[in-house]
């Protein structure tokens, strides 16, 4: 697997975790660069939550180790991490304000400091009126907001979000994305685990894809998308489609040709290892190009492809 270089906030090295006969994580390594937004992807049951729990010191690995800011991960680092687990939960009978203060104090904030920051956040999310309400009186969305605040209140170096957008309406999803990007700008590092590939494309610089307890894909987003490029280009053109298809050299494969409200559109694949230059030269001769653009694979496609590629292989091994 490809390992990143540079300043790592968090490094997991060959982590193994077994649960009574079932291996939840097998030799998983992962380096999270400082200041990055790191996507942790994988199908349900792949081992993401186990890895996140190990990073949060909720469980310990059977083998392998975790380093945080260059030191072996220890109790002192708990204050520097904020964790929003997939299964959200707050004390139902406790008041919102009191609860947020309690959780912040457990993360090492003083009461006064926590109170000050809490006020700012409540103003920002316009939820100051809830302070004295019990959590059980809140709607699900409201409780999610409160939980998000309690996760970030102590301004941790590392934020871990497990499916952060589930349960939010689109407006609040946007609000949350803004907040996450803002925290990144302020220097925080973010690990986030999701099935929503659109938000991965939008937010992540790096990803690790875990499948059946093993890392199957890892690296910088741009490089991965480069790696999985299908060498296909989308061409918008003006002129006779017939002429284009006839005039295309045999090196180029015409995958689709269609005409819609946007104009005429052709999808063309070039041979592996070739640049786009020859294709453009060829096209200029046969038609008038309005736009020319490489089709990069979406994370969704890559996810499905990688998972499918790895599933039968593992079966034959077993």
């Amino acid at each position, binding site marked *: 697997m490809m390992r990143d270089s540079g300043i790592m906030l968090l490094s997991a090295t060959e982590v193994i975790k077994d649960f009574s006969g079932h291996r939840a994580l097998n030799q998983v390594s992962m380096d999270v660069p400082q200041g990055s937004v790191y996507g942790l992807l994988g199908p349900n049951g792949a081992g993401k939550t186990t890895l996140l729990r190990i990073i949060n010191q*909720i469980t310990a690995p*059977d083998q392998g180790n975790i380093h945080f800011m260059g030191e072996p991960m220890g109790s002192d680092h708990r204050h520097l991490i904020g964790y929003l687990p997939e299964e959200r939960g707050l*004390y*139902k009978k406790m008041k919102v304000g009191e609860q947020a203060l309690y959780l912040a104090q457990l993360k090492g904030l003083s009461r006064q400091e926590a109170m000050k920051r809490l006020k700012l956040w409540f103003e920002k999310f316009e939820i100051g009126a809830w302070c004295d309400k019990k959590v059980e009186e809140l709607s699900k969305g409201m409780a999610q907001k409160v939980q998000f605040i309690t996760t970030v209140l102590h301004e941790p170096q590392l934020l871990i979000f497990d499916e952060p957008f589930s349960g939010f309406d689109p407006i609040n999803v946007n609000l949350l994305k803004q907040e996450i990007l803002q925290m990144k700008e302020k220097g925080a590092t973010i690990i986030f685990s999701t099935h929503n590939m659109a938000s991965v494309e939008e937010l992540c610089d790096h990803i690790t894809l875990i499948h059946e307890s093993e890392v199957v894909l890892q690296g910088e987003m741009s490089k991965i998308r480069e790696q999985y490029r299908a060498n296909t280009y989308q061409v918008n053109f003006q002129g006779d489609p017939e002429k284009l298809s006839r005039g295309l050299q045999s090196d180029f494969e015409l995958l689709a040709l269609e005409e819609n409200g946007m104009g005429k559109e052709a999808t063309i694949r070039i041979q592996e290892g070739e640049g786009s230059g020859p294709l453009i030269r060829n096209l200029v001769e046969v038609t008038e190009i309005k736009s020319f653009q490489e089709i990069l694979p979406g994370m969704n496609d890559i996810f499905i492809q990688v998972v499918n590629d790895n599933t039968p292989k593992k079966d034959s091994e077993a």
Partner: protein
Amino acid sequence: MNKISLIIQREYLTRVRKKSFILMSVLGPLIFAAYILIPMYFATLEDKEEKTMVVIDDSKLFTEYREGEPRFVIPGTEFLKFQLVSGMEVENFRESFDESGYYGVLFIPSNILASESSLIYSTKQTSVEILQYVEQYMESEIEHLKLAQHEITDLERILTEVETNIRVRNVKWTKDGKTQESNTAVVMGLGYLSGMMIFFFIFFFGSQVMRGVIEEKVSRIIEVIVSSVKPFQLMMGKIIGVGLVGLTQFLLWMILSAVLVTGLKAAFFPELNRTPTEQVVASDLFDGGSANEESAAMAEQVPELGDLDMAQEIFASLKAINAGVMILAFLFYFIFGYLLYAAMFAVIGSAVDNETDTQQLIFPVILPLILGIYVMISAINNPDNALAFWFSIIPFTSPVVMMVRIPFGVPWWQVALSASLLVGTFLAMTWVAGKVYRTGILMYGKKASYREIWKWLRYSS
């Protein structure tokens, strides 16, 4: 350390502020006071009503003549009058018994000397008190008659002369050469009360710990909390916090009960308050100084004092039981017994997803406690037998059983052994509980069983 105190604070404050806690704190003493005062109240109510008992004396042994009038020899009391009738049958009263207002019909057959039995006819159950009263008088009357048949001169004088009333009091020799007097009933009551209180405390607040763990699991906040603190810190914080709630509740109960009982007693039973002996004893009790020496000194004098009043005897026994040792032992077994069991309750809470699943797991945990109660009851009568000895050493039952033995005096090495075993077991149990707990709290949808718990115990973490 700071985190544990934060957790203790939360666990304590959220519980103490609950309406149910405040309600229990107020209602507890009310119930307790009612428990004491209602029987007292009924005792004063009873027999205020005047009852008349018809007597048909076929034997004529219980009829005496005064001024030519036949009278029943057994004197009536303030509330019970006898009315001797002659020339009537029991059946005569049957028809119109309810309208007559009579309490009953006492029938003394002519052959009473041989049969040694007589009958009371009534429509209601005759009270035990009245039965005993009648029996006692008839017995002594017939005994007198039988004695009289021997024609002993000066019988009355001899009888008064031979009448003796023996009361046995228990005087103990302590190791340091002093003598102490103790009233066994008081000692028994004190031991029993302490044991029961410890049992109740463990059971009630142990299950509160369990419910607290389940609440955190069900609401799913557990994962957030254990990313901030170690599971062990959370568990210990909860156990200590709930324990402090329990201590607070008991303290409140004690204070409120004392206030209530004194207040109500003064209001409703002024005559019970402050008999002269009580005043003497009370002034004696609160006379400062080193209680130990004083009690020993007092106990020395006791045998010479001769006829001691009962109340004085009780106070003497209370003083003879070494109060310091008793309170220390109570607090020790109270606290460590709770800690040991609370750890087990926490494990059960961590192993289940909801409260209904706890039942099958709870049984093996509380079994030794219930066994302890049975042994305690038998130990009251025989505090030094082998059963009581072993159960007061075994840590799962010692908090309950040792408490009834201590007032009777237990060799120091036994207390030391029992105490150190309890502390040792508490530490071991907490360590084990911590291991199981940290795995259990993150498990959902598993069928909770001891086999599963055993498996979690062997996980590396």
